[in-house]
């Protein structure tokens, strides 16, 4: 019996010591060695990541959507990748990646930068982040009409944020930019700026970007809120200070290597098993070649691109043998991603001057826009002058009776470069320029339709929307499935709040 007691005691001690050992050992090994804690975030480490997120989506898949819907490029008839875009057959499950990345990748990071920068008085980062946040939100509003804003980005405090209407969001974004501009942002930047970093006028560039973005947003309101648009534009023009350089991620940040290159190139040219999905669209080439535009070679690598008619991907080899060799758009791994180009800045100014200042100075801005576009694409300003001196409608200022049409047509031509093709689609939806064509660009025998006016947008022969052009994207499935506050579905063909 005594022996047994000893054994009992031994067991008891053993179990207790084991237990104590266990308890100590099981705590504090649960901090991830794989990912740094949230508290280690700084504006310098978050901001480049957020800007790259915006660029990857606006300059990636959305640039493809923009390029097809703005009729620069048509889907090849020998492959399949973008048929749903070229037939306007996009449903709620399509293109969700952009929405997801822009919110959870870009905006969440901007939001944290804003919080941190504000708390630390780092107003230089606050301005950068606010401008890019506004730019990103603006793209989302323009695509979806309404998105969550006032309740967005509250993390687990609200996982089903309500949607705000686009106009409210626009006004709030402009107010936020104004508030950031009112701070003392002229502080030394210590890295993290991949848009104007290294520029001797870095913060001044940011101010110009902020102003030009506001100009773009005010001009979007011309249909829905003309008074706001005019007041806003005129406020900016009291001391005009707009971009005269491109705002974006420069070529130097990209390399010719997978995952390190321009997002449009990585997506469309490098990663897909065939790089021949996108082909020159007759809508675009007809205008380029009809106006002897030297940019044709920049866009398509040849002065005489072989084209496809927009949306004509069901044509067979027998019907349209030339489609086999239709020209591909030129894409390079080190192309920049531009958020707002100098050319676009000038065309926005030209439009504003034409609308609200009776055209005073509009011609200069218009021609500066064309020149900026030429220069950005490696051509000379002399070539630009030669180009816009041709007595052609929508090319030379003098020959264009409808000045707005000329400005917006030339803006369209300029936006085929720099991965911001989506902007051309928005611009057309807002202003109606380029015009849409009443006829298709080819006849049933596959020859060019003589009644077609070069540069006018045509309805895709494979369109599923009964002759109506697409105007937006339907609310994404990632929101519909997870957020009861998602509004009822609105068809793709319904204009967004600022639409014409």
């Amino acid at each position, binding site marked *: 019996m005594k022996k047994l007691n000893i*054994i009992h005691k031994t067991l008891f001690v053993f*179990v207790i010591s*084991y*237990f104590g050992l*266990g308890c100590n*050992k*099981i*705590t*504090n*090994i*649960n901090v991830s060695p*794989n*990912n*740094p*804690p*949230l508290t280690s975030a700084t504006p310098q480490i*978050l901001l*480049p*990541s957020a800007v*790259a997120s915006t660029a990857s989506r606006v300059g990636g898949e959305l640039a493809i959507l923009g390029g097809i819907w703005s009729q620069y490029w048509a889907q090849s008839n*020998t492959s399949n990748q973008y*048929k749903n875009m070229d037939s306007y*057959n996009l*449903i709620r499950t399509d293109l969700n*990646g*952009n929405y*997801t*990345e822009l*919110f*959870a990748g870009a905006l*969440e990071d901007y939001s*944290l930068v804003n919080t941190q920068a504000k708390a630390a008085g780092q107003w230089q980062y606050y301005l950068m982040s606010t401008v890019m946040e506004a730019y990103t939100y603006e793209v989302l509003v323009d695509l979806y009409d309404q998105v969550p804003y006032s309740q967005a980005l509250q*993390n*687990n405090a609200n*996982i089903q944020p309500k949607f705000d209407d686009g106009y409210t969001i626009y006004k709030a974004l402009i107010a936020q930019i104004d508030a950031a501009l009112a701070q003392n942002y002229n502080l030394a930047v210590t890295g993290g700026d991949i848009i104007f970093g290294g520029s001797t006028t870095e913060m001044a560039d940011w101010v110009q970007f902020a102003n030009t973005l506001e100009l773009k947003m005010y001009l979007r309101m011309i249909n829905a809120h003309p008074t706001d648009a005019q007041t806003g534009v005129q406020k900016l023009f009291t001391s005009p200070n707009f971009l005269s350089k491109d705002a974006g991620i420069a070529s*130097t*940040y990209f*390399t010719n*290597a*997978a*995952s*390190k290159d321009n*997002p449009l190139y*990585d*997506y469309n040219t*490098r*990663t*897909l*098993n*065939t790089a021949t999905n996108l082909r020159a669209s007759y809508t675009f080439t007809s205008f380029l070649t009809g106006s002897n535009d030297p940019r044709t070679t920049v866009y398509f690598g040849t002065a005489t691109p072989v084209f496809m008619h927009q949306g004509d991907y*069901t044509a*067979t*080899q*027998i019907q349209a043998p030339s489609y*086999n060799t239709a020209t591909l758009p030129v894409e390079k791994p080190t192309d920049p991603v531009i958020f707002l180009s100098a050319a676009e800045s000038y065309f926005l100014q030209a439009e504003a001057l034409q609308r609200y200042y009776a055209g005073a100075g509009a011609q200069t801005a218009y021609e500066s826009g064309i020149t900026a576009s030429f220069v950005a694409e490696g051509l000379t300003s002399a070539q630009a002058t030669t180009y816009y001196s041709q007595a052609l409608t929508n090319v030379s200022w003098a020959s264009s009776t409808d000045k707005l049409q000329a400005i917006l047509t030339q803006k369209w031509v300029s936006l085929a470069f720099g991965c911001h093709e989506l902007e051309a689609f928005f611009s057309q939806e807002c202003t109606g320029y380029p015009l849409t064509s009443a006829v298709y660009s080819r006849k049933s025998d596959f020859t060019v339709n003589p009644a077609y006016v070069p540069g006018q947008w045509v309805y895709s022969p494979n369109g599923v929307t*009964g002759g109506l052009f697409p105007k937006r994207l339907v609310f994404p499935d990632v929101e519909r*499935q*997870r*957020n009861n506050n998602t509004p009822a*579905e609105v068809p793709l063909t319904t204009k967004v709040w600022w639409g014409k």
Partner: protein
Amino acid sequence: MKKLLLVSLCLLVLCITQVFAQNRTVTGTVTAKDDGLPIPGVTVKIKGTNLGAPTDVNGKYSIVVATGQTLVFSFVSYLTQEIPVGSGNVINVVLSSNNKQLSEVVVTALGQSREKNTIGYAQTTVKSGEINQASQISMFGSLEGKIPGVTISNTGGSAGGSTKVIIRGYSSISGSNQPLYVVDGVPFDNSRPGSGSTVGALDNYDFGNGGNDIDPNNIESISILKGSAATALYGSRGSNGVIIVTTNHGKAGKLVVDFTTSTKITDAGSLYTPQSTFGQGWDASHIISENGNWGPKYDGQIRVWGPLVNNTQLLKPYSFIKNDVQDAFDKGFEETNNIALSGGNENSTFYLNYGNVYDNGILPGTGDAYKRNTVGLKGSTKFGNFSADASMNYISKVANVTATGQGDNTQGSFYENILQIPMDIPIKDLRDYKNLYFNVDNYFTPWAENPYYSLFENGSHYNSNRLYGNVNLSYKATSWLTFQIQQGADITAVGDKIWSNYNNPTPGSWNAGANVEGGVRNPDVGKVIEESHSVFEYDSKVNALITKKFSNSFDINGLIGVNYNDRGFRNLSTEIKNLAIPGFYQIANSLNDPQSTEGESHRRLFGAYASATLGYNSYLFLTLTGRNDWSSTLPPGANSYFYPAASLAYNLTDALSVKSDVLSYVKLRGSIGRTGSDTAPYEIYNTLTATNINLTYGNLLFPLTGGIAGYTVSNSLNNNKLKPEIQDEYEVGGEFRFFNDMLGLDFTYYNRVKSNQILPVPISPSSGYTSELLNFGKVRNRGIELGVTIDPVKTKDFRWDINYSFTRNRNVVLSLPAGLTQVVLNSAYGAEFVAQVGKPLGEFVAPVPVYDPAGHIVVGSTGFPVSSTQNGDYGSSQHDYQMGLTNTFSYKGFSLEFDLDFRKGGKFYSGTADLLNFVGADPATLYNDRRPWVVPNSVQAVTNATTGAVTYVENTTQITEANVDDYYYHTSNEAQNYQRTILDATFLKLRQATLTYSLPKSLAAKLGAQKLAVSVYGTNLYTWLPKSNHDADPETSNQGIDLASDFGEFRTSPPLRYYGASLKVTF
């Protein structure tokens, strides 16, 4: 010491002899009933005394007894026999094994042996013979369909590919549904490399799961614990069932050598059936650079094919080639050998084994191959009340695997390329992939690559070294109390390499755009991935075992103990893309910088537990179990959780003494139990992640050129209030045997609900995150399991055994977090595999057509159906039921067995079907002989311009001949594509047929052996699929081995079929 004992025993015997003159010496031989062989080590005791003797190596004994005394013959796993000593001097005894008898001993939680009679829950034991019937290299290879409540599927079609084992259905929406594997008391890692890998591409390389590492030849038995009451002692890890593997151990007696060798031929088990009417082309035209079968009808005319090279072009008849796909493969060869030495004396035993497997796969070349070497040593010794045993095992595995699934810009996949060869092109000729006509420049189509290029130029190599083993010490303190300490370890180190070659069609060549379509194939830039992966697990236990009989009526059998477990893994992966020198696979050989990622995981668990079985009169048994766990992965202060279980076994036949010739045995049982599970490590605190932006196709990875670093707020919102998942389960059942055990039934009904599931709930991206970890979600599984055994004929020479199993599991999602209509578990091309409330876990949803109020399909202006904005329901992956049937006929030394496995109902997604429809190879694409047609029963919507009212008019727009192909693809006919890609998962398989001949003992002896048996067999011999499935075997998957794999397959390899012969000898 031993000698001294013997001497004293002799002296004692001598003394007794002098006192009782009538005492005499009785001798005899003890043999086994089943094989007639002598049994060494049988204890022969004189009843009511301490006197006894063991049998020697020849089964002979000799003992001094008196007439009237009784001899008791007992041996492990044999029925004890008592024989009164009569007048004779020779008593020969035949012992029968106690299988299926009341006293059958089974292995239960924590390796405790219990009489089956006493357990109150369902448990299945599988013996070595069944496991090794057809010399499979995986321990589950011969068990598909045989175990009620357990679904076993061979997902891999490569040599050594994975086996999926799921017990009582899927319970966990996003966590693991894998059972816990325990080998000789120690947890055994069953991960499938790839699933936890940092390199997503590994999912397409199936190197097999960890559970398949064990050489089945060394397994003595497998015990499968299904319900929560059975597994509660395993705590956090037992909730999905436990598979307890007991390996062979040495037995007292002379040295025994077991040798097994087998040789097999392998080929593709079931392949898709292409249409044989239309040949190469697209849009109804014959186009020689096309990868599809959308050309004109076969006419048998000699036509040119492929490019014009050096002014010559190949010729072949334009006709369907039979067995074109089958001929793309080779016959494979598999060889397995195992040798085991065992022996020992009453105090010490040893078991030493060595086994190897070699399989070269069914693909030409060395792109798929599997080699495994296993060595193990096990020993045990006793000294007084103290005993010790230990085992140490080493497994070396080397595998080459060809990628399945979808290719990328670094390579094409063999299986995807095969599917894109029109059926008039002789696939096997393309093996000569460097030939002028079949090379990178001149392969007939720019839209795909020569599959043999993918096979011979790209590949993978996997090498793992695994050590596992355990040390057990036990001390018997008193007759009723024993202490045990066990320490186990399982450590695996893996190195793998994946590579693909650089190629680019030469400018001006056919595939650089000179083909008739102007198609340009992108270069394969090539890549090298070099990975190392290590997994470790240490497990310690201290137990006190109690066995005590209180009175004639009551006894108790219990344990109390603690367990400490420490496990984790570490990965390092480095990748380069863009090879600088083609054909040289080294991390330095790139135009770009290598990219590396690392990851590690470490968790600890401490548990304390107790269990007691209280027996009453040997017919009523109550078992109570409780365990408390402390987990490192849960929030500090809230990381402790308890789960109890109770079970009752009632032996009706004994209790009521109603045993008769009709009713042999009835046991009723019922149990209720709770198990829990913790979360994965590092899910409590929020983090940043290194920025790697998904572009949908491609990605943008930081640092950016120019030294720009970036981190982003992780998209997964962690949760510092996580609670453990809880599973509650009850089951009732019974075992019934009739007609002197001729008919046996084992029936179970179970109901399990897993709640508080830890789910990365997808949340609206506008919250800033895409998922949040929440305790939510409830899934119920309930079902019935039935096992039937019948021996309709049982004569001296002939015997017929039937084993039937039936499983029906009904799975339903009871709740999801508020606001969440579904959780997406897996998806491909718009087909989603989801959890929805009220539906089985794993429902297919995908686009469907729009219908008008009268039920007609609404088509657009092009005549193609319009797809609805809402996804439609295509059914679940859950089978209606599954059944297995095994028939065994034995005649003298011959035995013939065949196994059928039938699974009824359920759906699966087939990426093979998707591509076969796209290229017009699926017989479904023959509709209307491919002439123009109007979508049956279709209407067009007309909107009134003024009122906006929509009316529907009959559709007359035809799908033209040139557009028929578009009708069968998801981008051009999204609305109707999924009825052709989400297929019926029903199948019936002849899993196995085996013919074995065991030589009579006398004949074997002439050859110097104790036992000798030869077998011929085939596995996966025939597969019946429903008519609607021309495309893929529903069992295959390249989506892992858990719930996501029930989604289906994405262009994976066909299953393998084996034919072979084996020889088993015991010396």
